[in-house]
């Protein structure tokens, strides 16, 4: 089932000035409920613009955005309600922290939603747990934290609103491998527990292969390809055509197949390729 559907959406920045720029050109794409969909593409391919549209920060120049089959711009005055349902974590979200303590900052969203203090407290605890923030850190000022910790706090600030759709614009950019694993792992748990839909913008093909169910590839303000991770990553040449990479391990698998070695299975994760090779060796009896 489709949770969010984008129909023929176009967006032009600064229309009618010399700075006019088309960011999205007749884009149609759907995001499945309860799945993690990865969004990849070059810088300037329209990913961030698309992401800003999903929770109504930008209004499409033309076209519609449907959330559960309903146009989010049907009642423009109630667009803020859409923002509670579709949570957006921006690029480098640590810039948005402002409150005295981490606890208050994470509670900013839920408090705006009009929840009681007790509920806010519950949400803060739950969100902190998803991203790996301990009780001690909750009492600190967000400004004395390290970059990676700030990132977690900012993401928790969105998760605390318990959105049905969680959109993240490069949540792991600039983090160390452990930070990446913890934050992205937290997302998977969030999806499982709340039957949420996640849209993840990333440049890391490895992360895509590990955490996503579906992938949407964008190029030159349009959707270039969309499908399951397997469909997209099994064909290295298609992505190479627009200058994108597949995961390194998928390249190895593809090279092996070119050599006439018939591998089968999930040929885009290290685990999957390992299994396929072992299976191949067993099959060919070498």
């Amino acid at each position, binding site marked *: 089932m489709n949770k969010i559907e984008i129909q023929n959406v176009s967006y032009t920045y*600064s229309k009618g000035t010399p700075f006019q720029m088309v960011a999205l050109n007749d884009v149609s794409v759907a995001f499945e409920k309860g799945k993690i969909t990865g969004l990849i593409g070059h810088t300037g391919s329209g990913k961030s613009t698309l992401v800003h549209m999903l*929770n109504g*920060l930008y209004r499409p120049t033309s076209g519609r955005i449907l959330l559960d089959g309903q146009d989010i711009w049907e009642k423009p005055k109630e667009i*803020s309600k859409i923002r509670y349902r579709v949570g957006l974590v921006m690029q480098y*979200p640590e*810039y948005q922290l402002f*409150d005295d303590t981490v606890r208050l900052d994470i509670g900013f969203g839920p408090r705006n939603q009009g929840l009681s203090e007790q509920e806010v407290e519950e949400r803060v605890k739950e969100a902190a747990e998803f991203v790996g923030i301990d009780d001690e850190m909750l009492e600190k000022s967000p400004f004395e934290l390290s970059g990676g910790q700030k990132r977690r706090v900012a993401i928790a600030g969105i998760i605390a609103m318990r959105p049905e759709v969680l959109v993240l614009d490069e949540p792991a950019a600039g983090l160390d491998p452990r930070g990446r694993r913890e934050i992205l792992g937290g997302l998977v748990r969030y999806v499982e527990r709340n039957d949420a839909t996640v849209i993840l913008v990333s440049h890391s093909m490895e992360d895509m292969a590990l955490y996503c169910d579906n992938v949407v590839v964008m190029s030159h303000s349009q959707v270039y390809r969309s499908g399951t991770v397997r469909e997209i990553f099994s064909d290295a040449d298609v992505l190479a055509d627009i200058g994108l990479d597949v995961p390194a391990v998928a390249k190895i698998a593809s090279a092996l197949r070119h050599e006439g070695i018939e591998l089968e299975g999930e040929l885009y994760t290290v685990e999957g390729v390992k299994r396929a090779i072992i299976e191949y060796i067993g099959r060919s009896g070498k």
Partner: protein
Amino acid sequence: MITDMTLGQFFPGKSVIHRLDPRTKLILTIVFIVATFLASNPVTFLLLTVCTVALVMASGISLGTILKGIKPIIFILIFTAILNVFLTGGVGEPLVAFWIIKIYKEGIIRAVFMALRILILIVGTSTLLTYTTSPIALTDGIESLLSPLKKIKVPVHTFAMMMTIALRFIPTLVEETEKIMNAQKSRGADFSSGGLIKKAKALIPILIPLFVSAFKRADELATAMECRCYRGDKNRTKLVKLSYKGRDALWFVLSALFIGGVIVLGFVAGYMPEELASTNLFRIMFYPI
């Protein structure tokens, strides 16, 4: 959206005015401002209007952009005009007399002139200067024009560098503000409803991150400049040296003719001294524009 504001923005282009030396444009702008204040009768205003229209056409800036730039000052225009209509006294019979309100012919004429003056001032100076001159060229021009002051130990270069940096970072800060606003909107922040105090409070989630990042940015910029051995004015050379060309001379002649025309036409029509002598609060207020 904030980024839609056009007043004070630079629009790259290759028109006659774009290609003028920034110093020429600065001097022409001063001449233009003086001329606007010297204008006092229908004939001079006609000359001013014609010249402004010619300037806009020569600059190749679209009419839409100009109109967009006027939008933020429309309220000031109307406000000034209305005050002038009601507060200007006159000789002879008032046109309308009702309770304490008296409207004279002079008041209406004055209101029209005043509104036209502000309009011409804004459109003319922005076309001549901000729309068609890049901020860098502008500060280079100012530094060069003020350089005689160096002899009396005024740190002209430092001021120019400060101005360059300030101008350069306006778009960055605007972008940053928009980014932070969007982030807080995504967390359900509401900037438009509620009373004055509530609205002011709603700004806290924007102002704090904005200040934090502005300070951080300033610090990083200073470090980056030091890394490249920036020591201010001393022994510093310029990549693009300013030089006057033939067309600059042509524009100086044109502007001399222009201001001469305004003065002569003003005297021909007569009531210039009275107009010059009258002090008007709004004229003083808007002088810096």
